[in-house]
C-alpha cells in the first residue's frame, strides 16, 4: 500500500516537475525545476532498487546537466544575474490554435505507443511507471515542437529521454535488466553530452555574435 501511494506520489511529482520544467515562462526557474526533476528521477531509480542508475542520474542528470544548462544561461555562482543573451530572450507564446496543432505529434506518438503497449503491458508490474514515462514523453514532445528556444528544446529533449528510460525500465524483465541498464546508461551519457555540447555551442555562438554585434540574432535562427 505505501509502495502504491509512493508510486502515485512519484508519478504525480515527476509529471508536475516535468511540466514546470517545460512550460515555466522564466528560463532560470525552468532550469532550476529541471534540476529538481532530475533529483526526483534519481530518487525514483533508487526507490525502484537501481542504485547504480540513481547515482549516475544524480551525477550526470542533475549535477552536470544542470551545471551546463546554467552555464549556457550565463548563471554562475559568482554572477547571479544571467549574462547569457539567450536568457533574456523569450519565445512569444504561440497562438492557441498553433499550440494545439503542435500537440498533434505528441498525441500521435502517444497513440502509437498505446497501440504497441496494449497487448504488452498486461501482466507487467509497473503500469504507473510506463504511464508516467508516456506522460513525460508526450509533454516533452509537445514542448519540443512548441518552443524554438534552444535551451527549452534541450530541456524538452532531456524530459523525453527520461520518459523513455522509464518506459524501458517498466517493460524490462529481470533477465533483460542488464541490457536495459546498458541502454539507459548510454542514453544518460548521451543526453548529458548532448546538453553539454549544446550549452557550449550556445555560449560560443553568443561570443561570436557579440563580436559581430548582431544582437538577438541567435534567437532568430530557426533551429
Amino acid at each position: 500500500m505505501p509502495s502504491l501511494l509512493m508510486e502515485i506520489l512519484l508519478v504525480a511529482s515527476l509529471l508536475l516537475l516535468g511540466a514546470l520544467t517545460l512550460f515555466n515562462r522564466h528560463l532560470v526557474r525552468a532550469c532550476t525545476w529541471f534540476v529538481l526533476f532530475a533529483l526526483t528521477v534519481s530518487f525514483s531509480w533508487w526507490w525502484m532498487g537501481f542504485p547504480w542508475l540513481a547515482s549516475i542520474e544524480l551525477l550526470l542528470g542533475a549535477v552536470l546537466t544542470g551545471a551546463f544548462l546554467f552555464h549556457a544561461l550565463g548563471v554562475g555562482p559568482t554572477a547571479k544575474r544571467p549574462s547569457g543573451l539567450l536568457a533574456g530572450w523569450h519565445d512569444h507564446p504561440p497562438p492557441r490554435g498553433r499550440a494545439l496543432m503542435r500537440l498533434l505529434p505528441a498525441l500521435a506518438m502517444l497513440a502509437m505507443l498505446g497501440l504497441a503497449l496494449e497487448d504488452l503491458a498486461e501482466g507487467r508490474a509497473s503500469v504507473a511507471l510506463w504511464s508516467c514515462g508516456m506522460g513525460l514523453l508526450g509533454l516533452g514532445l509537445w514542448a519540443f515542437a512548441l518552443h524554438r528556444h534552444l535551451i527549452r528544446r534541450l530541456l524538452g529533449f532531456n524530459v523525453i529521454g527520461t520518459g523513455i528510460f522509464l518506459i524501458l525500465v517498466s517493460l524490462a524483465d529481470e533477465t533483460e535488466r542488464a541490457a536495459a541498464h546498458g541502454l539507459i546508461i548510454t542514453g544518460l551519457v548521451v543526453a548529458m553530452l548532448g546538453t553539454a555540447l549544446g550549452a557550449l555551442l550556445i555560449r560560443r555562438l553568443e561570443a561570436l555574435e557579440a563580436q559581430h554585434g548582431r544582437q538577438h540574432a541567435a534567437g532568430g535562427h530557426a533551429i
Partner: protein
Amino acid sequence: MIERLGLVSNALPAQAEELAALGGVLGLPLLLGLLGGLARPARGWPVAVVGVLPLLALGWLFLQVAGEGRVWTVPLGPLSLYWRVNGLALLMLLLTQAILLASALYAPTYLRVDVQAPARRQAWFWPLLGLLATSLSLIWLAADLLLLYFGLELMGLVAVGLMLLPGKADALVAGLRYLLLALIGSLAFLLGIALLLGAWGRLDLAGLTEAAEPGPLLWVAVALLSAGLLLKAAAFPLHAWLAPVHAAAWTPISALHAGLVIKASFFIALQLWLVLTPRSAPAAWLVGGLAAAAVVWGGVMAWRAAKLKDMLAWSTVSQLGYLLLGFPLLVGTDSTVAAVAWEGTWLQLAAHGIAKAAMFLAAGNLVLATGKSHLRELAGASRRFPLALLSFGIAAISLVGLPPSMGFTAKWLLLNAALMAGQWIWLAVLAAGTLLSAAYVFRVFRYSFVEDAPSLDFRPVPWSMDAVALVLALASLLLGLVAEWPLSLLRAAGGES
C-alpha cells in the same frame, strides 16, 4: 536474407585471436587519432605511413573469418555482445578505412593551407576522426541493438563535434540544429529498442529474427526505429539539417559525413527491416515513395543551389533516395530480385561514398583556390585548376551514374532489380535522378568553361590535395568496371545465400 546479413544463429564465443583482430579494427583508429591529436601532423606522409595500420588490422580480421560469415559473442559483465563479421561488414569496413584514410591524408595540408582553421581546434580533429572511425566500424560489426545504439550515439555526437570544428557562426547554428535533431532521432531509436526489448526480451538481431512476430508492437517499434534512423540519414522530409551543416564544415569532414556517416543510419535501418519485417512490402513501398521524393527534391534543390558545397550537400539528399530504393526492392521481393538489388544497394552505397568524398575534396580545392564558394565564380576554372576540375568531373561521372563508373554499375543493378521485380515506377525515379544529377553537375562545368572571365586572384593548392581527390575519383570510376571485385568480397564471407 538473414544469411546475407551474416546473422547466423549459432553464435560462437570469440577466440582470443579473433577478439584481438576485432579490437585492432576498432581500437587502432582511436589510438591513432589520439596520437594525431598529440602530434598534429603537418604533412601527409606520416599519416600515410601510420594510416596503413588499421588496414592491416582489417586484413587480419579478414583472415580470421576466412571466407565465411561469423557471429561472435563477447561477454561483458551480465551482457553478452554480438559481433558479426561477414562480407558486407568487411566491405563497409574497407570503404570506411579508405575514405577515412583519404580524408586523413588530405587534412594536414588542408588545415595548414586554410587560414581559417584555428590551431586549437585542429588538435580536436584527429581524436574525433579516430573516434568516428571506431564508431562506424562498431556499427558495421554490431549484431545486436545495444551495440548498434551505442555506436550510433557515439557516431552522432562525434559527427556533430567534427562539424562544429570550424567554429564559425553559420557552422554553429547548423551544428546545433543537427545536434538537436540527431538527439531526437536517437531517442526515437531508443524507444523502438525499448519496445522490442520489452516484448521479446532480447536485443541480438539473429535472435530477434526468430522471436519477433508481426503485430502492432513490432510495427510500432520498427516505425519508431526507422523514423529515428531516417532522420539521422537525412531521408527526404527529414533532410533539412543536412545542407547547412555541409556548407560550413571543413572539407575532409564533409567528405566523411556525406560519404559514411549518413550511410550508417541507412545501413542500420535496412538491416532492421530485413531482420524484423522482411515481408512488409507496402511499408517498403512507402519508403520507396520517400525515396522518389528525395531523389526529385534533392535534385531540384541541388540544381538551384548557388554554392558549390550546397550543391553537393543537396546531391547527397538526392543520392540517398537511390539507396532508399533498396527498401522496396529488398523487402518482400523474391530471392532473384533481392539478390540483384542487394548487390546494387551496397555498390551504390560504396559508389556514392567514394564519389561524394572525392567531389567534396575536389570542391574544397576549388573553393580554397578561388576563395569563392559560388558556382558562378568558377568561371575559367578549367584553365586554372584543371586537376581539381578533372577530379570533380570524374567523380561526377559516378555520381550521375554514367559508365564506366561505379555509380553506373550500381544503377545498372538497381534498374535490373526494379525491372525484374516489375516495379516500373523506380525506373522513372532513377531516370529522373540521373537527369537531375546531370543537370546540376554540368552546371559546374558550364561555368568552369567560361573563357572571358575576369582574372581573379587565386592561389594554387598543394598538389597532394589534388592527388588525394584524383585518386578517390579514379577509384570511383574504375571500380565500376571491376565491380565484380567488391561484389565478390560482398559474397565471399557469407553473403551468398
